């Protein structure tokens, strides 16, 4: 029934467009315009064969086009996208029956597009833009995202350089035998790794079997008691941490751990500097850093001896923020509301974190003790999870912009 309604409206629109093209300068009188933008109403309704995505017209003239989406009764559809091939040009989320209509405006060049209504009985509805006028190239989301990804590559390289220096300083302090100085150097070295860990994980050194942790740089640098592989033994940051904060002693073994750490981080830096990032990598990386916070820091598992988990937490978040900031201008073109949600949730997390700052504490944040975890862990976890959920949904948009 609703399908028919579309075709009739579409035929009328085409007929009038055709007439106009034959006889006069003014065209597209069939499609209403407002403030110079063609108006397209997208209605989501519940039909006998499932939910239907209904357009009042399936064509518009090249130039600005405003899509107003109203979910009248389609409980199974919550978002609508305008697609150009595989690219998302614009979208509306959080659509549900009973809410007022929501609109987005795009400048479109002539060609064939699709309205994508995931969950509808027919998810893709063709939409045609007539006329030659190409869309204004300025502000193209894909270009903005690509340029953001380049900026981010530079950021990662800077952090990698600093990370190498950080572990070298740690080694020096360990070699000096001064436990307090080494503890401080440890807390100073961690942030660089934590900011970019999701970008540099998963590297296996050449000549090693992927199932052998001896060749896994990740393991060698960041293993902890909870994932100790007896066949390889202790190694990396947390081996040093254990000696400095649990035994509070520097032995020859500690010095060996620190020296190996420098070697492995230097190897990681070599690989890391050749990395190139695509926009979706940034989105995935940002979400993965938040996942690290959730699974390693809020549990207090990461820094089991030094309890500087909140330092790691803050730097995971900062790394995620950098990746997100690089994507933000492009994302704003696609879904400004989502950008606002993410901004707000980053603010919620950083506000929470600010409450734990302590300039006198190692790394600048209060120690994450068992007591603090018991009293504050639930709240921190909820705030982080709400950010991670939205960041997790970014990659799809970044990849298809």
């Amino acid at each position, binding site marked *: 029934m609703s399908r028919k309604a579309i075709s009739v409206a579409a035929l009328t629109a085409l007929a009038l467009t055709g007439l106009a093209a034959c006889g006069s300068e003014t065209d597209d009188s069939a499609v209403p315009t407002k403030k110079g933008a063609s108006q397209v109403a997208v209605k989501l309704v519940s039909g006998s064969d499932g939910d239907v995505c209904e357009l009042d017209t399936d064509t518009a003239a090249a130039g600005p086009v405003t899509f107003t989406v109203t979910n009248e*009764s389609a*409980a199974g559809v919550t978002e609508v996208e305008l697609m150009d091939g595989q690219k998302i040009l614009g979208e509306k989320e959080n659509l*549900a029956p009973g809410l007022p209509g929501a609109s987005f405006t795009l400048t479109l060049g002539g060609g064939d597009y699709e309205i994508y209504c995931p969950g509808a009985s027919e998810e893709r509805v063709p939409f045609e833009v007539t006329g030659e006028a190409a869309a204004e190239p300025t502000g193209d989301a894909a270009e903005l995202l690509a340029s953001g990804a380049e900026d981010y590559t530079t950021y990662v390289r800077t952090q990698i350089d600093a990370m190498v220096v950080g572990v070298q300083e740690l080694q020096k302090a360990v070699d000096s035998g001064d436990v307090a100085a080494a503890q401080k150097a440890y807390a100073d070295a961690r942030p660089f790794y934590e900011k970019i860990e999701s970008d540099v994980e998963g590297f296996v050194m050449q000549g090693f079997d992927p199932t052998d942790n001896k060749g896994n740089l990740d393991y060698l640098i960041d293993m902890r008691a909870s994932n100790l592989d007896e066949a390889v033994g202790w190694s990396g940051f947390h081996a040093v941490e254990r000696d400095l904060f649990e035994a509070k002693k520097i032995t020859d073994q500690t010095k060996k751990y620190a020296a190996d750490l420098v070697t492995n981080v230097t190897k990681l830096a070599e690989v890391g500097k050749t990395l190139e990032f695509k926009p979706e990598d940034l*989105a995935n990386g940002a979400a993965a850093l938040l996942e690290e916070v959730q699974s390693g820091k809020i549990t207090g598992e990461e820094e089991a001896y030094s309890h500087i988990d909140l330092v790691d937490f803050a730097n995971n978040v900062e790394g995620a923020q950098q990746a997100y900031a690089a994507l933000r201008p492009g994302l704003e073109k696609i879904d400004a509301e989502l950008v606002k949600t993410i901004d707000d949730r980053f603010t919620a997390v950083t506000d929470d974190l600010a409450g734990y700052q302590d300039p006198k504490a190692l790394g600048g944040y209060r120690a994450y003790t068992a007591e603090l975890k018991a009293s504050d862990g639930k709240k921190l976890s909820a705030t982080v999870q*709400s950010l991670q959920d939205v960041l997790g949904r970014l*990659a799809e948009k970044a*990849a298809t912009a």
Partner: protein
Amino acid sequence: MATEGKGLSRRRLLAGAGGGAAAGAAVGFLGGRAVSPAEASASDGLDLSKAYDFYTGDHQVGIATPPQRHLVFMSLDVVEGTTAEELKVLFARWSAAMATMMKGNPVGSVEPTRSNGVPQDTGEAYDLSPASLTITLGLGPGLFDDRFGLAGRGPKLLAEIPRLPSDELDPELCGGDLALQACADDPQVAYHAIRDLIRIGRGLVTTRWTVLGFGRASAGKGQKTPRNLMGLKDGTRNIKSEEELDEFVWVADADEPAWMRGGSYLVTRKINMDIEVWDGTTIDTQHVTIGRDKAEGAPLGGTKEFDTPDFEAVRDGKPVIDPTSHVALAASENNGGAKILRRGYNFTDGLNSLGQLDAGLFFIAFMKDPATFVELQRKLGRVDLLNEYIAHVGSAIFAVPRAPKSGHFLAQELFG
């Protein structure tokens, strides 16, 4: 928790149990009117393909709906700083998702076509039948404080339950700004519903407490009376007719907000049972405590489950049904005719720190005026013989809005 005092009272019980061996008794944690035995002995089979419609435009499902076999109940808090506009979108998204899941459909894609997509539906109910899933939304008193711009718009009878006698409440098991009750004949269907609704609400709501219920512990219309974990029939005299629902359950008061008319008030109590202690009591003690026999569920002095209890009957100079038995205290005839609709479930949380079975009854009741529960429980909490074997550890109250029509969402008028 068996203090010396309680031990003494148990002995008193035994001494007074003389006539208790008479036939029949059933427990209801609270009272109700009897229905005919024929109605109650109807088939208890399962039809997993059964689906309920969310958009009734009248009462929400999960209240008068015959209780399904499994429950997931989740109490939630609204995150500080959330706006009424955000809550409005949340209620709209939730309503749409509830309607979709109750049909047995996923909420969004389980298998996104784009490789970078995150599945919208979590998938564990993907191949499962609707299993009579009902999802019911409740609004707690906290929703109408000064945090979300909804102050003054709440239902007029919605207020925290006052402290009641014998309460041993743990604040972590109490209250909540919002509640979601999912009931289904397949536990995975109910779990999936709650999980995906939490996911939709992430950033706006956080989990507060939850109860997983099984083996419904209150009979609905046409169902055999089920048993609670004390082994006693529960809900023999529960509300089952339309007339009683209108009289005792559905809010009709013109002074209530429009979205509450056709709704109800929901009270939950998490009631721990001292399982091991109860299991060690004699059958006489069990009879006297409840006022009914165990196997048949007949009131003491009667012979059949649906016999009307005779609270006046005396034998050897003593009442046949102890006036402090659970049935005597809760019966509507002893409470000015007051009734509530019970819809509770058994629950277990595994073992407690002493290695005992940590289990009990998750009491759920619907009523048009929460004062009915408060008055009943005030009385039960003071003198109920059952108190010796139970402890109320959780408590909450929620307003349950009327269900929307298609094209609308729950409590839509709340947002003006």
